[in-house]
């Protein structure tokens, strides 16, 4: 649980040696058996927030409680209940992955089943390669296994899906889902909307060091749908048709030959505008989709608002 977290970095030479504030009062909460996601673009403050939550960084203001304790300077007992996957790995490059994982697991009284983690994450495929020579995605998998080696109650995963091929992504997502089912509290960061949407129970959108939106995925998308009228309908039909005159709030365009997109749909009446035109011109589309709102739309709208406010 984090309340009103402030974090300054510095002194920064570019600011005449003053401190630079990177977090302006972040608040969040994560429960056992859930996946909580910090979503934001690069540099939004996600990793800094995690660093404070993990006890790696000392906050400049606010309160941070990890399993009821202050994580900064935490006891070994508290650290033994928390697993951390750092964004840049934090793995010694000269070692091979499996001895490293066994070494990390040896610090715990009740470690995870390392053999099954190794097998699940396909680490045995590159067991004889030193960490230095692993690909980005392979390193990610080792770092994930290292974070889970102690069978933690809370796992902080910084960008767990970055650099993974589709197959490993699938495996990692399944694993995260199972750990959640088993009651683990998982806090992860991502800048990928799709991942946030697929994995999360609860999402905090962070931008420029501030919480800008939060909720379950369905809350976030539904809420924004109510506020903003940006539903889209796409359909395919004959190329280069003459487009009808439509009410001002609707935009119809031929995105690529034969593929049309209607933006600004907010009521059934808007759809009727479209079907009236089809009836008049005797058009039967080959395919028709209404796009459900995605986190990406929410995120882009928030970013848009932010830019307009500036």
């Amino acid at each position, binding site marked *: 649980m984090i309340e009103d977290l402030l974090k300054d970095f510095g002194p920064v030479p570019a600011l005449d040696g003053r401190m630079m504030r990177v977090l302006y009062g972040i608040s969040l909460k994560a429960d056992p058996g859930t996946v909580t996601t910090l979503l934001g673009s690069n540099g939004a403050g996600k990793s800094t927030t995690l660093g404070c939550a*993990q*006890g*790696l960084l000392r906050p400049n203001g606010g309160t941070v409680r990890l*399993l*009821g*304790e*202050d994580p900064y300077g935490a*006891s*070994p*007992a*508290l*650290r*033994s*209940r*928390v697993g*951390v996957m*750092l964004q*840049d*790995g*934090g*793995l*010694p*490059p*000269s*070692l091979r992955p499996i001895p490293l994982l066994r*070494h*990390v697991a*040896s*610090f*715990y*009284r*009740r470690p995870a089943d390392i053999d099954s983690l190794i097998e699940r994450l396909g680490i045995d495929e590159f067991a004889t390669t030193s960490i230095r020579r692993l690909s980005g995605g392979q390193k990610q998998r080792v770092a994930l296994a*290292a974070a889970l080696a*102690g*069978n*933690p*109650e809370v796992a902080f995963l910084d960008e767990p899906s970055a650099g993974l091929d589709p197959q490993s992504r699938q495996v990692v997502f399944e694993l995260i889902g199972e750990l959640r089912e088993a009651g683990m509290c998982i806090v992860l960061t991502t800048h990928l909307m799709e991942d946030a949407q697929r994995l999360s129970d609860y999402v905090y959108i962070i931008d420029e060091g501030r919480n800008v939106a939060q909720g379950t995925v369905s809350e976030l998308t539904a809420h924004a749908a109510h506020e903003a009228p940006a539903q889209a309908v796409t359909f395919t039909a004959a190329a280069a048709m003459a487009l009808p005159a439509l009410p001002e709030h609707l935009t119809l365009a031929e995105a690529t030959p034969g593929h049309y997109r209607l933006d600004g749909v907010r009521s059934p009446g808007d759809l009727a505008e479209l079907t009236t035109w089809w009836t008049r011109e005797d058009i039967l589309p080959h395919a028709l989709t209404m796009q459900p709102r995605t986190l990406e739309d929410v995120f882009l709208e928030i970013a848009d608002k932010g830019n307009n406010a500036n």
Partner: protein
Amino acid sequence: MPTSTQAAPAAANAQGTLRRILLQGRYETLGMISNGEQLVVAVVLPLMALFGLVFTDLLKDVAANPIDAAAPGVLALCVVSTAFTGQGIATGFDRRYGVLRFLSTTPLGRAGLIYGKVMAVLAVLFLQVLVIGGTALLLGWRPAPAGIGWALALLVLGAAAFTALGLLVAGTVRPEATLAITNLAWVLLAAVGGILFPSTRAPDYLQPIVDLLPSAALGDSLRAALITGTGSVSGILILLAWTLIAGFAATRWFKWN
């Protein structure tokens, strides 16, 4: 936090402190002795120095038998190479790659990480003393029996002082700079810092500085102990002072990120 401090031990999943430190010490030791460059610095170069000093007359005025004059200095060189140069470089790169940050989030923690490194330094130093000391004995070295206790204390205290100095360098500058500084210091201290040759050999204008260096305190005191069996309280005090100052500075300024 009364509730949390009561709750934590019940759910604690950490192995005991000593066990974690021993595990980390073993892991760091294996890392050091399985690394080719480190082995060269830890064993091959000291052996070359030993042979070089025995088969030249560079130390002929220090002791009647050249090996008696050479062996203590080479043992001092081992301390600097393992505790300062090797350990400093390894720590610097571990810091660059985030290894220190990651391990400090495990039950091992920052303190365990440091104690593990100290253990590894002592373990590698023990192996070096066996190899170098054994070779020297084969070459006819006869250390003064009265000085052996002093020598062991000096080696341990020297390891503490140079480990603290190595951590201070590794924790405050970039790893490339750590590499340059610790290697350059190793060569300079070996040559004119009182390690291989008595500190009185240093140029006159450097004398006041050299006398206060941990290298001179270590090298000169080891020679006094093992050649004539004389204990050097001032050498012990200088090493102790360096350990405390560098240890304090490293605690204060070491950057983990």
